[in-house]
């Protein structure tokens, strides 16, 4: 696997080159709202929050699965949106940009949570660790009994092994169900670039899965 693809530095997808005109987000209704928020209009920022809060909650809930933490992470996401909005350059749609911030925030949360758990466990004896693991909710276990949770855990481990951009593209395609054409519009890249990036991301996932499957105690789902 990957012998032929390895020799292709940048595969040319499709005999016909599909290059769509970039969507002019800056002059859209949403663009006007963003510009108002960028100039410090609190009402415009509030409109953005209220428009996208349900979507952000849904993305976080899908990745983190801890209902109690969803609202806290969502607050952090919108605080980041507030402070970075001045740097938003309209190269992509606002939701693509917010999606990226949300996914990064979730993975950051999971990474911090894992570090906290490791630090906590390093202070305990083996027996204590075993006892704590048995009393924690199944989501936090290394080998969850529930198959769906095990698969969820496995996917997060795989996605942690690709770049931020690849992770976002894969999630927008596979989790959100966007087509390549839609992704091109949303990100401001052309369709061929999207296809190349997705293909490379998938190759990395396959390799990561092979490594994880070789590791003991992993459930491929």
């Amino acid at each position, binding site marked *: *696997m*990957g*012998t*032929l*693809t390895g020799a292709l530095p940048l*595969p*040319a*997808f*499709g*005999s016909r080159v599909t290059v769509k005109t970039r969507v002019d987000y800056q002059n859209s209704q949403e663009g006007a709202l963003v510009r108002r928020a960028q100039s410090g209009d*609190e009402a415009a920022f*509030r409109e953005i*929050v*209220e428009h996208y*809060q*349900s979507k952000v*909650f*849904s*993305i976080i*809930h*899908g*990745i983190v*699965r801890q*209902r109690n933490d*969803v*609202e806290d992470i*969502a*607050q*952090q996401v*919108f*605080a980041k949106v*507030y*402070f970075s909005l001045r740097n938003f350059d309209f190269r992509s749609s606002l939701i693509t940009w917010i999606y990226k911030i949300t996914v990064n925030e979730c993975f950051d949360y999971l990474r911090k949570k894992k570090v906290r758990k490791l630090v906590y466990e390093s202070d305990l004896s083996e027996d204590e660790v075993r006892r704590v693991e048995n009393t924690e909710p199944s989501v936090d276990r290394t080998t969850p009994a529930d198959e*769906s949770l095990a*698969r*969820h855990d*496995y*996917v*997060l481990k*795989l*996605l942690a092994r690709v770049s931020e951009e690849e992770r976002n593209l*894969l*999630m927008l*395609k*596979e*989790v959100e169900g966007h*087509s*390549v054409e839609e992704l091109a519009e949303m990100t401001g890249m052309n369709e061929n670039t999207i*296809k190349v990036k*997705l*293909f490379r991301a*998938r190759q990395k*996932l*396959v390799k990561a*899965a092979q490594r994880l499957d070789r590791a003991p105690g992993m459930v491929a*789902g």
Partner: protein
Amino acid sequence: MHQVILDRLEQHLSGSPCSREFTAHLESCEECRAEVQQMKELSGVLFTLRAPEALTPSAGFYAQVARRVEAERPRSLWSFVWLEPAFGKRVAFASLMTLAILGSYLITRETEYSAGPPRPEVIMAQQSPADNPDMILATLASYEP
């Protein structure tokens, strides 16, 4: 992976029907078939990241966001002094102490200066006439009250 598969890979993984050429190649090329199969499996697993149910944000969600924004807003030194009463009190106390020390130092200096140069009797007492009478005369002549 061969070009014919690369061209239609995303379409195939999305479940859309692909060209006869694509299907025929996939049937004949074992390597492409295996790789596409692995990608298809992972594509299905990624779907587990969909939210199991819709969560509704609480009514006061925006207010919470606004509070967090305020809490994380970078502060100037002045706002820090005003918003942190304990720190402000310490700064005020330190300023008052500095003023008091500086004030008492200046007052002491002022007292010393107002005392003026030593009186002739003092000079005469300090310098014995036997030592140098001309010096005493010169000092007294140049004395300005």
